[in-house]
């Protein structure tokens, strides 16, 4: 009996250290954050739990602009990344032949250089007198005054750049797994290439589109590296606010409320998006 008992407990011994670590340093802090958000006080006297829900209303009132901006920037970057990544992932999956590995390595190459470093490089490349800004001015992406840095466009540019690989990789993974015979069958049934692409390939790629969009949108919403380095005070995102509330102003309740609201907005967004795309179970993504 004791042996069978030990057998039953064994998987828990394997799982325990990791789960415990995540519980103590991920789950408990986030729950603790709820109680911090309901406290009031100031750093000198200390904070007390007073169930002051007004912090939430004040936070929404004062920072709804940064909230909408974060979601707008993150949404724009997600769409841009989808447009850039889909043809690239399609090319790697179907046309890259024996160079597939090399293409994939190039896609993940940015991961091996610090994100802050790459963003700082863009800051230098995109200086107002630079070649790239002049070309963008030619095609009308940059307005006549020649300023690109410190604008919302620059921040969206930076976010799109930083999270592009997260869109390419899941898209590639799903496209690569599609059974080619299904597409052949479509063309055998007199589907034109375009219709076959639209009615067979794209629907089968939906899980990849879903996963990629989440992997771009979620970190993009909370990002403040791009808006700090490439933006200005007119482009502050919610991440900037949370960071300065926490580290500079020491207004912990507001920071906690904001980060909790951000989490909530993202979860609701994911749920709606999942409904629209028809992915019922989010845990499917975990595998």
């Amino acid at each position, binding site marked *: 009996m004791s042996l069978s008992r030990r057998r039953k407990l064994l998987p*828990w011994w*394997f*799982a325990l250290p*990791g789960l415990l*670590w*995540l519980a103590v340093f*991920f789950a408990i*802090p986030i729950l*603790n*954050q709820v109680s911090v958000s309901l406290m009031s006080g100031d750093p000198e006297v200390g904070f007390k739990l007073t169930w002051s829900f007004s912090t939430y209303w004040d936070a929404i009132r004062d920072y709804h602009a940064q909230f909408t901006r974060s979601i707008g920037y993150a949404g724009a970057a997600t769409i841009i990344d989808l447009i*850039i990544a889909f*043809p*690239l992932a399609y*090319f790697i999956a*179907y*046309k890259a*032949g024996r160079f597939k590995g090399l*293409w994939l390595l*190039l*896609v993940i190459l*940015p*991961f*091996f*250089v*610090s*994100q*802050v470093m*790459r*963003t*700082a*490089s*863009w800051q*230098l490349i995109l200086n107002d007198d630079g070649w790239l800004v002049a070309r963008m001015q030619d095609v009308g992406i940059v307005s006549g005054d020649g300023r690109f840095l410190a604008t919302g466009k620059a921040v969206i540019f930076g976010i799109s750049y930083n999270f*592009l*690989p997260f869109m390419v990789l899941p898209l590639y993974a799903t496209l690569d797994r599609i059974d080619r015979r299904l*597409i*052949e069958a479509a063309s055998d049934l*007199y589907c034109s*290439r375009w219709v076959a*692409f639209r009615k067979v390939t794209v629907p089968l790629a939906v899980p990849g589109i879903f996963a990629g969009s989440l992997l771009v949108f979620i970190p993009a*919403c*909370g*990002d403040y*590296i791009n808006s*700090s380095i490439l933006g200005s005070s007119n482009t502050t995102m*919610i*991440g900037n606010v949370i960071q300065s509330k*926490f580290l500079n102003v020491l207004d*912990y309740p507001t*920071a*906690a409320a904001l*980060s909790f609201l*951000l989490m909530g907005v*993202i979860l609701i967004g*994911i749920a709606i998006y999942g409904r629209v795309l028809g992915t019922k179970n*989010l*845990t499917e*993504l*975990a*595998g």
Partner: protein
Amino acid sequence: MATTQALPSEPVSAPTAAPPGPRNDREQGRGRKWLLGVWSTLAILFLVAPILFMIVFSFNDNKGRFNFEWKGFTLKHWAHPFADPDLAKALENSLLIAVLATTIATMMGTLLAVALVRHRFRGRAAADFFVFLPMASPEVVMGASLLAMFLVLGIGTGFGTILVAHIMFSISYVVVTVKSRLEGMDPHVEEAAKDLGAGEVTTFFRVTLPMIAPGVAAAAVLAFALSIDDYIVTSFNAGQTQTFPLFIFGATRQGVPPQVNVLSTMLLILVLGLMLVNVLVQKRLAVRDKARRGA
């Protein structure tokens, strides 16, 4: 590249009477492939552009604070990459944290992945979802929450808290990477080991672990890259401790010194080297296994 057998939309038997004749269709396909290739090349150029810029300007004989105008080739930054003691210390901290966080997170994550894939236990689905959650949370939320807890408990932030945080966000990525390797493997081999009298622990070390080794190695490389690169979570929990990304972020305002370009390039080469070693070792092992099986 030239063979088109993988082309999805090339009909096996082209309908002869269909309006777009097969010849026309093929020409169109070639044009489309060309367009796709150009688009993909541009996308890759976009991805690597700031990295190329970084490498090229590590050789720039820069004047003034900002290093973006080409003033001539020099090796002086490569000769003295650690000229700035603060930068050297920051890099040292980052490397130490990355090595420790990678080791610990890889061990815990691998065990957790084995438990999740190979064992049926109560609460498995919930545990699966729980592991997925940190990857779905914005870093700013994780970083701020962790700092709030340290503040409540009166724990001072610094090297230790950065390490704790890095292990936390790496575990999930390790689990997912190792899990995907485990799921592609035949569980019967492990069952056979157990039938032959090996205990759970022996089976794990002698059978499971050698089989999932490539996945574990890939997970470790990923954890290392995540840790050495992290800015957001670290910035909340660093206290007075500097890491490499924190140093660069602070320097963006006054101009990033070219030594940062040099050291970032070195790190890039180091990680690429580690990956190459992993691939070569796997190939070696595969060849050896084949030879053994043949003998």
